[in-house]
C-alpha cells in the first residue's frame, strides 16, 4: 500500500540519494533560463505600477513603479546566478541551502509579476488587495492542513479533509439559517467535522480499514449526502434552510490601519482570527507539550509509545476527532464568510489542496501555514490577472495553483518525510 508512508525513496540507498540532490539545481537552472527568455528578453516596454495602499487608508504609501525591462533583466540575471550557486553547491557535494531556494522563489515571483502585469492591458495592480485576498483564500486551506497535521502526526492519514470541510460548510449553513446566528453555525461546523472524523477513526482504527480508502470514500459519502440534502431539502426552501447570516468582519482599531499588514492580520472575521490562533496553538502544543510529545510518539513509533504506557489507539482516536473540529471550523468559512449559503460540492477540491499544503509544509503547522498561503496567493493571482487582461490564456492562469503545487511537491520540497507510522494501523501484540 502506498499512503504517505512512501517516503521510501528518502530512506533508500545511494542511487536514489544522488538523483534527489541533483533535482533542485536542474529545476532552478531550467527556471532561470525561462526567466532570461521571458522576463528579460520578452519584457514589455512599459512601467509597472504596484499600488501599496488604498487611497482611503489612514496611512497612504506611494505607488511602487518599476520599469519592466530593467526589472525583468535584473531578476533574471540574479536567478541565473543563484542557479549557478546551486549547481556549484551540489558539485561540492553539499545540499542546496534552503535560503537559496527561498530567495530564488521570491525573485522569480517578482520577475513573473512584473512581466505578467506589464504585459496586461492595464499595467497597474493593487498589491495590498492581492495579498489580503490571498490570505482570505488560504483560510480554509490552512484549517484543512492543520487538520491533516493533527491527524497524520498521530499516525492516521487524513484524506477526508475535503469531506470535513464540505460537511462543516453544510452544517454551518443549515444551523446558522435555522437558528439565525452565525456563531451557532460555527459550532455546528465543528460538530460536523467531528462526525466525519469519527467515521474515519472508527473505520481506520477500530476496523483497520486502509486509511486512504476510508478517506476517499468518506469524501464521496459527504459529497453525495450534502448534494442529496441540498437538492431535496435546502433548495426547496432556501429561506428556512440555506440563508445563513454572514460572520461580521471585526477590525481592531488602529492596528488595522497599518499598511498592507493591517487588513491581513487585524481585519478578519472570527474564523480568520481563529485561524491564526489555531496555527500558533497547534505549533506550540505539538512541539512543547506533553500531549504533543505523545502525539508525535504515537505517529512515529507507536510500539515505543505503547511500551511507555501511552494508549496508542485512544491517542489517535482523540487526535482524529480534534482534526475534525479544526477542519469543520475551516469549512464554515465557505458558507459564513466567503458566500452566504451552501452550494453543491462548494469546497471544490480545496481539501485535497490542503493535503498538498500539509505535505509541502512537511507536516509542520507553520510550514503548512505558509504552503497554504502560497496556494492562496497563486489562486488569487490567477483571479486578479484574468481581470487585468494578460496575454496568458485564462485557462493557464487557472492552472497556476496546481502547477505550482506539482513543482513544489516534485522539486522544491526536498526531503519531506511523513511521520513514521502514518498510514499504518497499530495492532497491539
Amino acid at each position, binding site marked *: 500500500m502506498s499512503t504517505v508512508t512512501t517516503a521510501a525513496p528518502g530512506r533508500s540507498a545511494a542511487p536514489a540519494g544522488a538523483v534527489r540532490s541533483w533535482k533542485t539545481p536542474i529545476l532552478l537552472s531550467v527556471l532561470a533560463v525561462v526567466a532570461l527568455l521571458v522576463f528579460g528578453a520578452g519584457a514589455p516596454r512599459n512601467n509597472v505600477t504596484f499600488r501599496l495602499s488604498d487611497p482611503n487608508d489612514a496611512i497612504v504609501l506611494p505607488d511602487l513603479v518599476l520599469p519592466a525591462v530593467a526589472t525583468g533583466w535584473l531578476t533574471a540575471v540574479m536567478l541565473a546566478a543563484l542557479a549557478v550557486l546551486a549547481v556549484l553547491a551540489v558539485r561540492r557535494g553539499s545540499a542546496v541551502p534552503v535560503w537559496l531556494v527561498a530567495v530564488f522563489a521570491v525573485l522569480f515571483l517578482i520577475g513573473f509579476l512584473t512581466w505578467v502585469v506589464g504585459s496586461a492591458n492595464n499595467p497597474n495592480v493593487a498589491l495590498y488587495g492581492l495579498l489580503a485576498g490571498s490570505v482570505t483564500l488560504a483560510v480554509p486551506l490552512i484549517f484543512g492542513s492543520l487538520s491533516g497535521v493533527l491527524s497524520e502526526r498521530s499516525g492516521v492519514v487524513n484524506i477526508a479533509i475535503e469531506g470535513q470541510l464540505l460537511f462543516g460548510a453544510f452544517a454551518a449553513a443549515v444551523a446558522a439559517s435555522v437558528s439565525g446566528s452565525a456563531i451557532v453555525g460555527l459550532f455546528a461546523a465543528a460538530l460536523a467535522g467531528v462526525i466525519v472524523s469519527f467515521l474515519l477513526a*472508527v473505520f481506520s482504527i477500530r476496523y483497520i480499514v486502509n486509511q486512504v480508502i476510508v478517506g476517499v470514500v468518506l469524501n464521496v459519502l459527504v459529497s453525495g449526502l450534502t448534494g442529496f440534502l441540498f437538492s431535496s431539502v435546502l433548495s426547496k426552501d432556501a429561506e428556512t434552510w440555506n440563508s445563513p447570516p454572514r460572520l461580521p468582519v471585526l477590525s481592531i482599531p488602529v492596528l488595522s490601519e497599518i499598511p498592507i499588514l493591517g487588513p491581513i492580520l487585524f481585519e478578519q472575521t472570527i474564523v480568520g482570527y481563529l485561524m491564526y490562533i489555531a496555527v500558533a496553538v497547534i505549533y506550540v502544543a505539538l512541539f512543547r507539550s506533553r500531549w504533543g510529545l505523545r502525539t508525535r510518539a504515537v505517529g512515529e513509533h507507536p510500539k515505543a509509545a505503547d511500551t511507555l504506557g501511552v494508549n496508542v489507539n485512544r491517542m489517535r482516536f482523540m487526535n482524529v476527532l480534534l482534526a475534525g473540529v479544526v477542519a469543520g471550523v475551516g469549512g464554515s468559512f465557505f458558507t459564513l464568510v466567503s458566500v452566504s449559503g451552501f452550494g453543491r460540492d462548494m469546497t471544490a477540491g480545496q481539501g485535497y489542496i490542503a493535503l498538498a499544503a500539509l505535505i509541502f509544509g512537511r507536516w509542520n503547522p507553520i510550514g503548512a501555514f505558509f504552503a497554504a498561503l502560497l496556494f492562496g496567493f497563486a489562486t488569487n493571482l490567477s483571479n486578479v490577472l484574468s481581470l487585468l487582461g494578460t496575454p496568458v490564456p485564462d*485557462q493557464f492562469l487557472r492552472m497556476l495553483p496546481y502547477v505550482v503545487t506539482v513543482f513544489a*511537491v516534485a522539486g522544491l520540497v526536498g526531503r519531506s518525510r511523513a511521520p513514521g507510522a502514518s498510514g499504518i494501523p497499530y495492532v497491539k501484540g
Partner: protein
Amino acid sequence: MSPQENPPVTPDTAGGQPPTRRAAQEAAREEERRLEAAAETGGGQVPPPAVPASPAALAAAGPGDEQPLMQRIITGNALVAVLAVVLSLILGGLLIAVTDEDVARSASYFFSRPMDTIGAAWSAASGAYAALFQGSVFNAGGDSFARMIYPLTQTLTVATPLICAGLGVALAFRAGLFNIGAQGQILIGATLAGWVGFTANLPFGLHLLLVILAGMLGGAIWGGLVGVLKARTGAHEVILTIMLNYIAINLVLYLLSTPGFQRPGSTNPISPQLEATALYPPLLGSGFRLHWGFVVAVLATVFVWWLLNRSTVGFELRAVGANATAARTAGVSVSRGYILAMAIAGALAGLAGVAQVAGTEKVLTSGVAASFGFDAITVALLGRSSPWGTFAAGLLFGAFRAGGVTMQASTGTSIDIVLVVQSLIVLFIAAPPLVRSLFRLPTPGAIPSAGARRNRKTAATGGAA
C-alpha cells in the same frame, strides 16, 4: 539480475536455475497469500496490509477447504458483499424516506396515525428503488422486448468507462500506488482520441484503431508522468494525480478554445463531431446506445487479469506494491514498476476516454469524462483491486448510474443518493467485521466463545457508528 527477468526456462538452463526459479515461485505464492490477507483483514485476526502477515495469523484466518459448506458461505466474502449492498440500500432508503415531502406531511400527525408515516416512507423509498431498477435492469412496462431490455444495455454502456478506468485504478493500487488521477487521464485520453477522430480521414477499422491507440497513449502520458515524477523525485502520487486532474481539465478547456479543436462557427468549448469511421459501431443495432467499447472493456479486463496474474511484469508490479523495499532487495526496479504501473493505468483510463468520445458522446467537450474518474476509484475499491471484481463493481455502479437518471426523472429523487449508497457499500465491504457483527454472523476461524465476545463488542461500536 532478478530471477523474473530470465527468459522462459528451457530444459538446459533449468539445470542451472532451479533454486532461483523455485524460490521465485515460492515467493509468488507467498506474496499471493499475503495480498489476499491484505485484502481481507480477516475479522481483525489478520494484521493489516502494512504489517507483514505472520504465519500464525494466517493460520488463524482459517484453512477454508476444511470447513463445512454452510460455514464457508456464512463466513465468506460473497455474503458480506451482498449484505453490505443490502445494508447500504436500506440506509439510502431511510434517507430518501426522511427527506420525502409526503413523509414529512404525515409525520406531523404521526402519533394519531403512525401507519400513514410508515406507509409514506415505504412508498417513497420503494418507489425510488423501483425506478432505479426499471432504469437499470428491466423495464416491465416496455411495449417490446427491445424496450424492456433497453435499460440493461444502458447499464452496460455506462459501465464501460467505469470498468476501463476502474481497472486502471485497481492496477495502480496493486502496485502500491493510489491513483486518484483517472479523471485527468480519461480527459487527456479522450482529447487525443477525439482529435484523431475528427481530423484524420481514414478508412473504417484503421481509423478506429488509431483513435483507440491515441486515447491509450494520451492516458499513458498523463499517468506515466506521475510515475516518472514519483520515481525520480519521490513526490507523493496522491497529490500529483489530483493536481494533474485540474491541469488536465484546464488544458482541455484551453484546447477547445483553439481553432485546432473548436467546432467551426461555434463559440462554445465543443469539438466537431467525430468522423463516422472513428466511432465504435453499435453492438446491438442502432436502436441501442451500447457500442463495441464494452467488448473492449471485457478484453481489457482479461488483459489486466493476465498481466497481473500470469506475466513477469505483473509479478514485479505486485511485488513493488506488496513491499517496495523487499522488491528492491530482490532485484526488482521499483522506479520502473511505478512508471509502468502508472502508464498502464493511464492507458486503461484512456480507454475509458475513448469509450466516451468515440462511443457514447461522439464529440469532445470538457465534460466528456463526467465523474467517471472519481467513480472509478470506488469501483476499484469495491472490486478489491482484482480485475474481475472491478468488472463486477463497474457493472453494479453502471446500473446505479443509469438507473439513477431514470429515478431522478420519474420520482424526483436526487441522483446524489446513488453516491451515498455507493460509498456506503465500499465502506461496509471494507470492514467485514462490522457487517458480520451487525448481522450476527460468525467470524471466520474464530473459536466460538471468542467470536461471540467479539460480536458483542463490535455490535456496540457498530451501533454507535
